[in-house]
């Protein structure tokens, strides 16, 4: 065994050691990235009606989208990388009053019309007790 180690050591060049070190370093640096779904994070607004995805709106593109829920029409506006609800049925108007959202993990919920708009990603908050 010692003989083997000695032979290997003699045979491996300085470059080989560097290469091994680089591969290890590079690999360990990318490991945490694997655990984040980085693709969608913060760049899209996912619109659901009754839990079903009906739109995936890129935040980079300004537009207005109308979706139909059980209580009527919900109008969603994307502008300057932010998204808000312009109109939605329901006397409480919670989702309109929440205003603009733009950060990953933020969401608007228009409950009477069963519409949700979510910017996927991790905001550091998992849920809100309300």
């Amino acid at each position, binding site marked *: 065994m010692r003989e083997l180690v000695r032979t290997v050591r003699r045979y491996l060049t300085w470059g080989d050691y560097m290469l091994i070190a680089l591969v290890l370093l590079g690999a360990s640096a990318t490991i945490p990235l694997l655990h984040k779904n980085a693709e969608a994070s913060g760049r899209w607004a996912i619109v659901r009606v009754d839990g079903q995805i009906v739109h995936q709106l890129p935040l980079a593109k300004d537009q207005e989208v109308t979706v139909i829920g059980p209580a009527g029409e919900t109008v969603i506006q994307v502008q300057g990388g932010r998204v808000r609800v312009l109109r939605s049925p329901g006397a*409480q108007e919670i989702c309109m009053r929440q205003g603009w959202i733009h950060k990953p993990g933020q969401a608007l919920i228009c409950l009477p019309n069963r519409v949700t708009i979510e910017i996927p990603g991790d905001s550091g908050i*998992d849920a809100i*007790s309300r």
Partner: protein
Amino acid sequence: MRKTLSLLKIFVFGVLASSLVLIYLQGRVAIVQEEQYLLGTYFRIKAQSRSQDQAHQAVREAFAEAKRLAEEFSRTGTGSLGELNRQGCCAAVQLTDDVLTVLEAAQKYRELSDGAFDPTIGKIVDLWGFTQDWDRAGVGRIPSEEALRPLVEAPRNILIDPQTKTARLSSSAVAVDLGGIAKGYIVDRVVEILKKHELESALVDAGGNIRVFTLRSRRVLWWEDRRPFRIAVQHPRDERKIIGILEIWGDRALATSGDYQRCFFADALGNIFPCRYADEPDKIRYHHIMDPKTGKPARGLISATIVAPTAMEADALSTAVFVLGEQRGLALIESLPDVEGVLVTEEGRILTSSGLREASFPTELP
């Protein structure tokens, strides 16, 4: 010799590369999140597992159970609770095990809270217009004293017979409303199902009625996310704000009762205005959490958040504490093991129970 060594070199690199790939695969955690509209709210389940299939299967089964129970606990639905209310006074109705369990628990919390939590006030809540389809109307009405008094003064009881699994209502003034406890029970049952699957962790959120669990016994590799669940507490006067964050390890539940959830405003002329988080100048807020002793919205607190071992306990206690108010509410929290709370008073003071002193809550509404 050189050839063997160069083969050896390839071999060493090969082992290195494939072990890295294995570590990658081992460490990967699948997150499955789904939401459905149930019980008049958004029901969200998030499951983390090493196996995507396992997580999907768990969430599917959990939603099936939640749907079944939602019908079971509908006040007016086809379940045995609906039947009990339709029968009205005095006829015994056969109950399913789920409804029986929750009715018995509701009675327990009624006694524990000295009547502050009361499952028999369905008719009083109706009189104010806070019915199940309230979300669509968004406003209620102020009932007359004459209409309210007989419902408040009548002895209201649910007579349960655990032997025959039946129950009957003591008078026609009673309608059973398990709104302050059934959602919590359903969340607990859903968590039970999720726990049967090999999940790393899971979060169940029924419109702010939350339970989370993390299985910490499993060996966790160093790069894995080992942060606790972070649950925010809603600011009762601003839908865009939170008043603080609670960090939850292990298995805990949270529920909040607030006067902003279902409410309406009335002005001096008796005009009714829709519910808002923010107060309206020159208008009085009327909300859905009734003080059973007066038949009117409980005053003193504007929000009560409870952290407890089960979602049913958190759900029932948040209502009870809201009605009991600052001092008696805090006393109830402190008297119970493993129960903590965050209360907000009418004047905007924020109070935390002894176990949450480290949590960084402000002492006044921001």
